[in-house]
């Protein structure tokens, strides 16, 4: 394992851990954005350009913003005084350790690793596109259709105006981002 990869992994794990422990929800969301960037950096160091940049584009650019706006629209804004750990934290820790062990065991014993230490192929974005357009064209088209439908649906929901209100400008800054963000996530994923 190279040093840059090690540093990235430590930063990512620290950010993920801090995101769980902070009391202020917005701080947690920002730490989560750092965690997403760290995951993207890991992908980039493993020569997965397309996944890495898409991770930044979708997760940092859209999902993190979605979380932050959802927090702002729902929470009262007050930071809780008491600890964020609930009484059942011990059970949660046991469950997460069990899940991690199960996943780790599954990965270590999968047939992908058993096929030996073949040199990793260098895959360009063009290769990914070629495979998507030939071998996996049906799933791609289905997902594209679904996302386009979701995007158009979101626009139609925003399009609907109550009778009699169309002369008044609706300048509510609260409603507009929430509607457009959900459509935006669909749109961004559709654009790829």
């Amino acid at each position, binding site marked *: 394992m190279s040093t840059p990869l090690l540093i990235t992994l430590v930063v990512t794990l620290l950010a993920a851990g801090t995101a769980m422990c902070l009391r202020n929800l917005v*701080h947690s969301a920002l730490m989560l954005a750092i965690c997403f960037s760290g995951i993207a950096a890991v992908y980039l160091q493993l020569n997965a350009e397309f996944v890495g940049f898409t991770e*930044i584009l979708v997760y940092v650019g859209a999902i993190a*913003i979605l979380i*932050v706006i959802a927090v702002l629209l729902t929470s009262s804004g007050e930071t809780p005084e008491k600890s964020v750990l609930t009484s059942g934290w011990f059970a949660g820790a046991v469950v997460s350790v069990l899940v991690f062990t199960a996943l780790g065991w599954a990965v270590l014993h999968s047939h992908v690793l058993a096929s030996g230490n073949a040199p990793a192929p260098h895959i360009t974005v063009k290769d990914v596109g070629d495979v998507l357009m030939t071998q996996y064209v049906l799933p791609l088209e289905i997902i594209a259709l679904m996302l386009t439908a979701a995007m158009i649906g979101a626009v139609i929901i925003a399009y609907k105006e109550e009778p009699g209100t169309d002369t008044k400008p609706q300048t509510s800054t609260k409603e507009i*981002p929430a509607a457009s963000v959900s459509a935006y996530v669909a749109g961004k994923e559709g654009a790829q």
Partner: protein
Amino acid sequence: MFDQLDQIFVTLKHQLMGFIPGAWQPLVSAILSIALIPVVFPALFSIVTVIERKGIGRIQNRYGPNRVGIPFTKIRLAGFGQFLPDGLKMLTKEDIVPRAADKLVHFLAPVVMLVPVLLAYSVLPFGRNMTVSDFDAGVLFFFAVGGAVEISVFMAGWSSRNKYSLLGAMRAIAQMISYEIPLILSAVTVVMIVGSLNLSAIVQHQNQYTFGIAHWFVFTPWGFAGFLLFLVASLAESNRTPFDLPEAESEIIAGYFTEYSGFKFALFFLGEYLGMFAIDGLGITLFLGGWTAPFSFLTWIPSYVWFFGKLMALVCLFIWIRATLPRLRMDQLMNFAWKFMLPLALINIVVAGIWHFMGQDWQRWLVCSAILAGAYVVLGSALMKKQNLGKRTYRFAE
């Protein structure tokens, strides 16, 4: 001779590399390439601020800055030295942080704003063989780092603990998110036609001439529509008039950077302008042929001159628009993005596909132009019908 002038920076760097011991060469080469970006573009920014103030002054029938020249001399330069005292003023001003502010997030926001913007320059081809980092997924990289700017805007608005800041941040995020979709979708057409996400390959594809006219994508029906969509969306992405609601000074003071002063304010200002240059540079690369000349008899002019000339032309267009158009209302802004630009961008993708599969016939010009013009008319009239435009009525306070 002209070829040497065109490649002067490349050969200069190669000769410099000759003096460096072998082990250090990759590091020094990278530093040399990277160092040019934070030198050239902030310098361009300082000049553009003066051009903007003078240009808008001229359009609004008043004098812009016209006195400051070179310090300690009597040379005035028609006010073009104005950026020096402006920058010094920003540096020496007191840095005020509100007592209730979230100190760390408040401090980090301008940095988070500037870093992705500077990163975006690394994939732009400034001239022939002049790209800092020329890799396959260039377009994807540009849009990916652009996504991080929204986080910084939110950080600035939220951490200031000020209603104006938060309102400005919410407006800015809603606007950036809405206009990023037409921006990306209009760029997708170029990627489809070229078949590559590499920006240098996109420029090479446009570097051919028929009857002495370059194959710029803006000269095709889908490219023209795509360029206009890209231009409007890039105006909105860089928060320029008529889309400057996030910092509408008559309503919410300065939007998300209301609570910033001194050099942090200057960093936001710098980040905004550098973002505008970067997105203009991408538009030039995608639609206006990058560093290529428009006519074959002009190819002797060095490539970087073409790139920066086009960049300055687009920036001057933005300044002209800023001095001409009034600001949109929030609902008009959203309607325009979701009900007009998004459907038109989707139709434009279909038109680019038709263009590709109709071969080299002259009919494809007719078919593609007809579809786009029809879509423009139908969408435009549908959007305007909702506006109830008629004789304006005024209501006064009773």
